[in-house]
């Protein structure tokens, strides 16, 4: 047995701290909730109002723009048709908007943090263990407090998804910048380039393929989170899968699962194709 006197009351602190936050800062979290929800509802509204065929054409065009060949658009069209033919179009749109908002927030947070980590060894030493923590902490641990702070529904789902999905983006952004050749940096300094210009004109463009890989990872993890997010009332494909599992309706679970995989294929291939194009662009 571990000696009692070495134990410390972490559980009590966390509970009291959470209570204190809920009671005293409920309004702040409500405001954040409102703000995130507005973005989400806007994106959802836009995606919902696009007719299915137009959505397929748009995404196929995006795929063509990314890959410049006809194979990728064909895969995208086939994946969307598969989702529609399973009768899951509307739910897939809900899941897509949840994922898009999560990825946008993750980019807004993750890329600057990655830049910070690349620029300072001290920041790197502080942030790395936090990222490790975020990647290994079981999602349920922060899902429930997220519900207590933000209420049930889409917003805590987005917050939890961001926590889950942002670490690879931060790491790859930082890695990409650190991998930029020192000689290139010295050369740009020799031309009298300022620090900011150096960052935006030299480091970031050269790090783009890595950042794109980070966005790709981030998107995949966000999609992986949708089933877990449905456990706190986020609607979409995850809820469909959860219903299937909880009612032991295996068919339903598999259909929902396949639709999630189809969405993953679409976004994985498109972001990867963009990453590849940036790589070619760089080598020119």
């Amino acid at each position: 047995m571990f000696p009692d006197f070495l134990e410390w009351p972490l559980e009590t602190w966390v509970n009291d701290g959470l209570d204190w936050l809920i009671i005293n800062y409920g309004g702040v979290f409500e405001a954040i909730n409102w703000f995130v929800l507005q973005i989400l509802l806007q994106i959802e509204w836009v995606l919902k109002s696009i007719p299915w065929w137009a959505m397929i054409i748009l995404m196929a065009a995006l795929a063509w723009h990314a890959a410049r060949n006809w194979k990728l658009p064909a895969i995208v069209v086939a994946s969307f048709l598969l989702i529609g033919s399973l009768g899951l179009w509307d739910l897939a749109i809900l899941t897509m908007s949840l994922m898009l908002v999560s990825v946008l927030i993750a980019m807004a947070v993750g890329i600057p943090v990655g830049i910070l980590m690349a620029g300072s060894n001290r920041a790197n030493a502080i942030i790395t263990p936090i990222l490790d923590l975020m990647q290994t902490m079981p999602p349920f641990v922060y899902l429930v407090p997220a519900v207590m702070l933000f209420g049930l529904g889409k917003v805590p789902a987005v917050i939890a998804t961001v926590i889950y999905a942002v670490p690879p983006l931060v790491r790859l952004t930082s890695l990409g910048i650190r991998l930029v050749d020192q000689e290139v940096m010295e050369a740009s300094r020799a031309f009298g380039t300022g620090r900011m210009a150096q960052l935006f004109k030299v480091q970031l463009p050269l790090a783009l393929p890595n950042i794109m890989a980070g966005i790709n990872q981030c998107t995949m993890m966000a999609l992986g989170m949708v089933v877990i997010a449905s456990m706190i009332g986020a609607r979409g494909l995850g809820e469909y899968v959860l219903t299937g599992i909880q009612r032991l309706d295996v068919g339903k679970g598999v259909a929902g699962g396949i639709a999630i995989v189809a969405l993953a294929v679409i976004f994985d291939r498109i972001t990867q194709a963009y990453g590849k194009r940036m790589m070619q662009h760089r080598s020119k």
Partner: protein
Amino acid sequence: MKLKATTAALALTFAFGAGAAQACELDRSVKLADGNWDAVQVFNSIAAMILEKGYDCEAEMVTGGMVPLFTALGKGDLDVFMDVWIPNNEEIWAETKAQGAVELGVMYDDATEGWYVPRFVVEGDADRGIEAMAPDLKSVEDLAAHWELFQDPEEPGKGRFLNCPIGWGCEQRNNAKLEGYGLTETFVNFKPGTGAALDSAFAAAAKRGKPVVGYYWAPTWLLGVHDMVKLEEPACTETNADACAFSNTPASVTASAAFVEEADALESFFANYKTSSAEVSAILAYMQENEGSTREDAAKFFLENYQDTWTNWVPADVAEKVKASL
């Protein structure tokens, strides 16, 4: 060789002489269905302590969702499933029963379910400076007029009704009720995904003094800690079968047919397991109010403080052994 056999025979006689409860009836552990709600988990911990200390059995708790647990019980992979609200799970129970399970007895019959709002919504709370938000909100029929109080941030044109998590028997009953009470126009039928999410939605609203309406049930720690009122519902008649009050639900102990066949003494222990909604709430409130207390602590609390209850479940010699272990 002969000597060994004699010793074994002697040992056997000795064991029987010392009391039938010395050796467990099963040569394997007793498998208890560990559902994902507090009450069944505490029942399982209490039963496990009695099985281990009183009957010298091993107890094993198997976690899972409602449906998988029922399936396992029917197949005999699980022995006992306590706190089963059969009327809420009629269909799946019928299937499980047909596969090979029996109802051993009713544990308590005064459990209630219903649609709840925090008391401060109706009566206000002078201590916290909360004014009554809807003094005339008494029954489910009044909800339509007050939907704005419960506004759903995701669909601001409607109120939010917190239903049961998907997969619970009550979820579909609530769907039918929302329909029957004509509330689908004014309320979003919100399904929180898990019990933990439903709890935290209620608890957070109660702590912050915000209105909330949804399904909840007693006995639960939540209703012990946060003061809530149950909305009145019309009594059931022949014409409104879908949209009427929940009846008080009996909570049963169920067991697999194989277990009943194999273990008579254990069967009678589980069949005699009788408690009440009030006792269950007391245990759950104990857990909630004593931070860091485990379900085992709660089980111990029950065994220490409710001896008049549990000593009726078991023969006197078993009760003595359990008491001695406390």
